[in-house]
């Protein structure tokens, strides 16, 4: 597999040189150099560092999840507010008749009340009947009333 384009001639020359007896002898000597072994202390130190790194990554991942979900909720809330608040604040065409309707209702109720008062005064029982009722509900006994209480 050729990764970079290279001069074919140079490659052939290099290959033949590299396969010479002397070159192979050196290769063999280098290959037989002793393997370097690492201590258990080194390995346990590495394990600690990797464990700390794994814990750090886990925390980062957890924080990222919390933040992204919070951000998502925040964004959703903000969008909702942006949609809802202007609609609530804006006076709509339907809102005005509603207030007129309530005024009409109020005034009609008031008119009805006045009419009933007038009718009550004109009819047979009249104002006197109502006043009598008031006296009936007072704390005074039947014998204890005087004329000043009427007027």
């Amino acid at each position, binding site marked *: 597999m050729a*990764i970079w384009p290279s001069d074919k001639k*140079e490659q052939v020359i290099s290959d033949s040189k*590299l396969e010479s007896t*002397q070159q192979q002898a050196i*290769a*063999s*000597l280098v290959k037989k*150099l002793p393997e370097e072994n690492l201590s258990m202390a080194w390995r346990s130190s590495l*394990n600690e560092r990797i464990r700390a*790194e794994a814990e750090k990554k886990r925390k980062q991942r957890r924080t990222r999840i919390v933040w992204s979900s919070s951000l998502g909720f925040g964004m959703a809330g903000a969008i909702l507010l942006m949609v809802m608040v202007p609609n609530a604040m804006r006076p709509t065409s339907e809102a005005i008749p509603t207030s007129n309707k309530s005024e009409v209702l109020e005034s009609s109720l008031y008119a009805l009340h006045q009419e009933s008062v007038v009718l009550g005064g004109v009819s047979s029982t009249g104002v006197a009947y109502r006043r009598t009722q008031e006296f009936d509900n007072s704390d005074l006994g039947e014998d204890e009333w005087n004329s000043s209480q009427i007027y």
Partner: protein
Amino acid sequence: MVIGQGALALNFEKPKESVVDESLLEKCRRQDYEAFGKLVDAYQNRVFGFVRRMVPTGEDAEDITQEVFIRAFQNFHRFDMRSSVRTWLFKIAHNLCVDRARKVGRSPEQVSLALSADIEEEFEVPDDRWQPDQMLAQANLEEAVELAVSQLSEKLRSVLILHDREDMPYEEIATTLNLPLGTVKSRLFLARTHVQNALKQYMEDRNGNLA
């Protein structure tokens, strides 16, 4: 090569590549602590062997080797599995060694290299009478080879160790060190020739002392 009696006990264990399968790598990508431990078991001595020969002290080598695995753990999600995990780990190791060399003021860029065109003029190639088997019998040969390798520039040393010590093919070295294929071969040839000359010198000095 036949190693005669009295030769140094040179042990070279083949790496346990089979333990690093796709499922293990997939677990490592998911930050599985246990799986990553197995990966470390498979490669720690090999990475350390490379780094140890790239930096001057064993302490530095231990620190860098730890850093290699920490970086690998941190960035495993970036490992695309197009290259082998070995290539990736050695790439991290090499980059960290280069960074360390720059920090201590020995920039690998400043090392002059004679490339393949000048090889034959630059270096004397020993004759065929030179026999590595005889040299193996010498008690201090191992140290001599280590010394010769340590005297190489970082650029030559990295190629030599990756190819001759780690059995990496040329293409993988090219990917690891981000070099053209031809440069890898040229550097390998130069490195071996330097070591050969250093050992020849060592033998001559030794024979002179014995005489």
